[in-house]
């Protein structure tokens, strides 16, 4: 084997006082070899970014390496002066980040931001820099690179911005590219494109890539070698095949087991024939900007003639890319938003026409579970109050409402003592359980879960999904499950509706959608699921 380009030895990074643990990275050792893609995986907070940032000398204030070394080109990066570090950055080691939205300066044109890389290292004339910028943009596959070069970041889509970031990173042909979750914020389809781009560029330029992710699907897609991190330590490392197929460490095994399986089984749908929710001709158009005096408004047809039926005890998945209108549909159903037209019949009554007290009454039977376990609970209310508030608003006495809250907490596997605590005293998964308990408090017949598990780590995701499935069974609930993650949809849904640009392009039983997609769009979506090929290969 060749010599490593980057070699991290016994790295120890201390966190400031009062952090959740003493060391962000604790005695970590790994090598990065030329021409390979090394994936660092692990759950949020495990220290993946820290070790990478340390190699760039970009640790946050007050976070300091306290031990070990990072050898690049025979020298310990940690011992370099700031000036030497600056020479290294961008030229020998480049880095791209997770958030394409905020990783570019909003006030500078794309070409200027790319040209800056050359400027930083005193290379080329300004004219040449501009020309190179366009070449680079062409290389990363941005449509109309001339125009993109003159654009400001906000004028580009997320995927395009990520391409700009990559172009910037490639500018000086660095020996190492560090990619810190570069696709996490992107759609599956875009993610697939970016992964492919990175793979191709890596091969073409022969760089070493350190790829940080928490998604094993992505690992399967792209990695040559894998290092698994937990609580600041490497718990397992090896080639991609070794780790994925034959995980040794308990933690790795757990993580891999928690990944929802793609293949939807052809279940005997437990569907009662009685429809509980019937949606017909639903439309919603957003008009933004404009206002009293201002310029031309932006019009988005977010929900375009959507028809759905949900039967008792059934789980209907709504999937689609970001911005396809999934949430808008969900919000129209519970009337958090007024649809422009269409009917939403809940047990025969049209929700779309109700208002005032009648609407409040009708909403009792249709409740929602939200995406963000942090934002969906009022930080200033105790858990008991959060759950009891709904029933109390409908005239249940305080005592009874609290008694019921205790029962609900038990139902979602939480301690009854939780009623006297504040949300911030719970972990993400526990908070999501509280959110579920709150939704159940009004004894609804339909629950809408909008990205209810997207914000959770895989292992916790699995727990919550199990809980939902269990509750659905026990309480005979009908569930609308909104997600952009097809793996999750495959696992929990009886039927799936695929949305694109506000329209439902395909709807049918889950297994049919996955095994025999009818529309092109569905097919692209499915093909873009990371790790699918490997999984199929393993299965097949």
């Amino acid at each position, binding site marked *: 084997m060749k010599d490593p380009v980057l070699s991290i030895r016994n790295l120890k990074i201390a966190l*400031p006082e009062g952090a959740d643990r003493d060391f962000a990275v604790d005695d970590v050792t790994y090598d990065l070899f030329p021409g390979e893609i090394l994936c660092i995986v692990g759950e949020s907070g495990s220290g993946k970014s820290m070790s990478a940032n340390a190699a760039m000398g970009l640790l946050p204030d007050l976070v300091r390496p306290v031990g070990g070394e990072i050898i690049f080109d025979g020298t310990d990066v940690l011992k370099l002066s700031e000036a030497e570090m600056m020479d290294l950055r961008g030229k020998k080691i480049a880095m791209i980040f997770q958030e394409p939205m905020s990783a570019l300066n909003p006030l500078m044109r794309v070409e200027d931001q790319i040209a800056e890389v050359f400027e930083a290292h005193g290379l080329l004339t300004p004219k040449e820099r501009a020309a190179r910028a366009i070449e680079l943009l062409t290389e990363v596959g941005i449509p109309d690179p001339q125009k993109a070069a003159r654009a400001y970041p906000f004028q580009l889509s997320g995927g395009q911005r990520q391409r700009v970031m990559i172009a910037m990173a490639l500018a000086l042909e660095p020996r190492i590219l560090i990619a810190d979750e570069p696709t996490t914020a992107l759609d599956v389809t875009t993610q697939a494109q970016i992964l492919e781009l990175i793979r191709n560029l890596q091969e073409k330029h022969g760089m070493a890539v350190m790829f940080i992710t928490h998604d094993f699907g992505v690992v399967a897609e792209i990695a040559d070698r894998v290092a698994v991190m937990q609580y600041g330590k490497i718990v397992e490392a090896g080639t991609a095949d070794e780790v994925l197929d034959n995980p040794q460490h308990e933690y790795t095994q757990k993580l891999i087991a928690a990944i929802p399986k793609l293949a939807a089984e052809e279940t005997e749908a437990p569907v009662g024939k009685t429809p509980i929710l019937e949606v017909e001709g639903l439309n919603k158009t957003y008009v933004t900007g404009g206002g009293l005096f201002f310029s031309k408004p932006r019009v988005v047809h977010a929900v375009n003639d959507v028809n759905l039926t949900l039967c008792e005890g059934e789980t209907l998945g709504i999937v689609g890319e970001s911005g396809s209108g999934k949430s808008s549909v969900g919000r129209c159903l*519970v009337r*958090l938003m007024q649809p422009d037209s269409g009917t939403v019949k809940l047990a025969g009554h049209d929700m779309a026409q109700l208002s005032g007290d009648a609407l409040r009454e009708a*909403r009792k039977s249709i*409740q*929602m579970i939200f995406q963000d376990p942090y*934002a969906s609970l009022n930080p200033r*209310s105790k858990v008991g109050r959060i759950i009891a508030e709904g029933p109390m*608003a409908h005239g249940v006495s305080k005592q009874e409402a609290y008694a019921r809250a205790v029962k609900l907490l038990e139902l979602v596997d939480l301690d009854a003592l939780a009623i006297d605590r504040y949300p911030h005293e719970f972990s993400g998964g526990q908070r999501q359980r509280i959110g579920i308990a709150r939704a159940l408090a*009004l004894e609804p017949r339909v629950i809408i879960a909008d990205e209810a598990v997207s914000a959770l780590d895989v292992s916790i995701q699995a727990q919550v999904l199990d809980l939902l499935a269990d509750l659905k069974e026990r309480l005979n609930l009908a569930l609308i499950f909104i997600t952009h993650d097809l793996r999750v949809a495959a696992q929990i849904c009886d039927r799936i509706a695929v949305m694109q640009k506000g329209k439902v392009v395909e709807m049918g039983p889950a297994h049919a959608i996955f095994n025999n997609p009818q529309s092109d769009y569905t097919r692209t979506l499915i093909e873009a699921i990371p790790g699918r090929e490997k999984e199929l290969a393993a299965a097949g």
Partner: protein
Amino acid sequence: MADFWKRFSRNRGAVIGLAILAIVVLVAILAPLLFPQSPWRMVQRPFLPPFAMDQYPLGTDALGRNVISGLAYGAQVSLLVGLVSTVAALLIGIPIGALAGYFGGWADDALMRFTEFFQTVPSFALAIVLVAIFEPSIQSIIAAIAIVSWPPVARLVRGEVLSLRSREYVEAAILSGQTSLTIILRQVLPNTISPIIVLASLMVATAILLESSLSFLGLGDPNLMSWGYMIGAARTVIRQAWWLSFFPGVAILLTVLALNLIGEGLNDALNPRLARRGK
């Protein structure tokens, strides 16, 4: 709470500010005990310089009134005006901001135009006109200060409410059947408290400055001894009796400084984002 205090006390300036303010408050409360005679009473020959007589350590003014006693009673007025007008401004600004932010649409438009209107009128000039029109008295001064200082509150609250309004827990509250009023009062406003407290602490400081400026221009309550009044009255004799404007000026400076320091401390302690930065 203990946590809050810990974070607050990490800011040395804030602690100093709190100490100064505590002294000012104490002096204000104890003024009648420390100086049983009215501060208007002419007790010695006019223009007695400071430190000349033990009884009148800061000297006497143009009518032979005890300066230090005036300072003590002035603290009462300044704090009273500062606090009451701030509370009044909050009482105007919070509902307007909350309604505008929560209901949006034309209500927001109308309320914000209204707010903008008050921001367009030069505020100090408006305060002068209001006090002159309603005749200088502690009530009119407080009212005028409140009227010119509520718009920032409304804007702040509106901004906060606007972002809180789309928070998922507010939507959850809507779904659970709570009325708009309950939601505003129980879910939204409690979460705007931190920035409001920070703003309020700075508003008290501004109000004290405003009151003193009005008094300085002769628009103070003529029956109350206030710091601004003392400086205004001393301005004409600044050449022969510098201490008459110097001491009340320092008093205002320290009080306002203290409130600002406290405001910064509160900001650090209440704003988790800054706090985490571990400044």
